[in-house]
C-alpha cells in the first residue's frame, strides 16, 4: 500500500513538470556545492578557515530552508487536492506518504544528476591532466591525482539532504493535519 502510494507520488511529481524541474535543478546545484564544501573539510591539509566553516554552514542552512520551502509549496499548491483526497477516505498518513514520496524523488534525481555531472567533469579533468605533460608550462598538473569529489563527501551530502527532507516534511506535517476535508467543498470563483 505504502509502496503503491510512493509510486503514484513519483508520477504526480513528474507530471507537475515546472515545479519538478526547478526544484531538481536547485537541489542539484546545492548538493554539488555542499559536497564540495565537505570535500574541502575532509581532504584539505590543516584546520578549516573561518570562511570555509561559513560556507559549509550556509550550504546546510540553505538545504534546510529549500526542503521546508518545497514541502510548503507542495502542500499549499495542493490544498484542495489534499482536501479532496481526505474526502474520499485518505488518512493523514496516506497524504504524508505522497508528499514524502515526491520530496524523496526530487532528492534522488538531483543526486543522480550530481553524480552524472561529476563523472563527466572528472573524466574531462582527467583527460586534461593526462595531456598536460605534452604542453610546456603545464607539466605540474600531470602529477595531480586527487579526484574532484570523493565518495564520503557525496555520501554525507546525500544523507544530509535526506535528513533535511524529513525535517521539511515534519515541519509541514501540522499543515496536513490541520487541513480539513471540508475545504474541498468550497466553490472556486
Amino acid at each position, binding site marked *: *500500500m505504502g509502496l503503491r502510494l510512493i509510486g503514484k507520488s513519483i508520477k504526480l511529481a513528474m507530471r507537475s513538470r515546472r515545479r519538478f524541474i526547478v526544484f531538481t535543478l536547485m537541489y542539484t546545484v546545492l548538493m554539488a556545492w555542499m559536497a564540495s564544501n565537505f570535500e574541502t573539510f575532509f581532504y584539505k591539509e590543516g584546520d578549516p578557515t573561518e570562511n570555509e566553516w561559513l560556507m559549509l554552514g550556509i550550504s546546510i542552512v540553505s538545504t534546510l530552508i529549500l526542503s521546508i520551502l518545497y514541502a510548503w509549496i507542495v502542500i499549499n499548491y495542493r490544498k*484542495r487536492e489534499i482536501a479532496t483526497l481526505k474526502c*474520499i477516505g*485518505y*488518512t493523514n498518513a496516506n497524504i504524508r506518504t505522497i508528499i514524502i514520496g515526491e520530496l524523496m524523488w526530487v532528492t534522488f534525481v538531483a543526486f543522480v544528476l550530481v553524480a552524472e555531472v561529476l563523472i563527466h567533469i572528472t573524466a574531462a579533468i582527467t583527460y586534461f591532466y593526462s595531456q598536460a605533460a605534452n604542453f610546456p608550462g603545464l607539466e605540474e598538473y600531470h602529477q595531480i591525482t586527487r579526484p574532484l569529489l570523493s565518495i564520503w563527501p557525496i555520501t554525507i551530502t546525500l544523507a544530509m539532504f535526506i535528513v533535511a527532507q524529513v525535517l521539511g516534511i515534519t515541519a509541514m506535517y501540522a499543515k496536513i493535519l490541520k487541513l480539513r476535508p*471540508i475545504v474541498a467543498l468550497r*466553490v472556486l470563483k
Partner: protein
Amino acid sequence: MPEVMIKLENVQKEFRLRGNIIRALADVNLTINAGEFVIIMGPTGCGKTTLLNVMSGLDLPDDGTVIVDGEKIERATEERLSNIRRRKIGFVFQDFNLVENLTAIENVEAVLWPGVLRSKEIEDRAIAALRKVDLLDRKDNLPKELSGGEKQRTAIARAIIHKPRILFADEPTGNLDNEAARQIMELLKQLNKEMGTTMCIVTHDKGLVKYGNRLVEMEHGKVVKS
C-alpha cells in the same frame, strides 16, 4: 421495515461570523432510509450544505446524534471518519475536484490506492465504473481535456468505484449547462436504481426535484418539509 441509512437526532451546529453567531442547524431531526434518492433544497444560507457536511462526517455537530449506516459519527476521530468515508461514502462536488495531473482513469483509481486491492483489480474496477458512466473512451484524458459534463461523470465514477452505501453530492449540476445537468441527474437516478446506493443531493435548482423520490426542504437551519 426499511433499513435506516442516516439518522439525525436534535442536531445543532453554529458558526461564528464577525462576532455574530449563526445557527446553521437548529434541532434537526431527519431519517433517510437505504436506497432513497433525497433532494435537499432551500434558499442560500439555509443550512443545506452544513447538513450534508454533518451527515457525511466532513463536519461535526455541536450537539445531537448522527448515525450513518449504524455507526455513530458525531464524536468520531478524523482517522475513523476517513475510514467510514473510504468504505461507505462517495462524494460528488460542484467543482468536480479532479486531480489535474491524473488521467480520468487514474482519478477514479485513486480512491483505492491506499487499500489492499491488487493494481489489476483496481484497474478493472475503475474500467467498470467508467463504463457505467459511459466514459470509457476518454479514460486516458487529463481533466483539462474533458468537458464539464465529462468531468462530472469522471467524478461520479470516482464516487462509485468502491461501491459506497451512500453518495453525497453538493450542487452536482451547478457548473453544467442544462443538457449536461439533465444527463448527470439521469445517471445518478440510474445508479440509485441499479446499485441501490442512497443518494443525498443538495441543490437550489427546483428543476432537479423530479429526479428524487423524496424532497427535504430547509429554512433558517431547520427542516421544514421532509
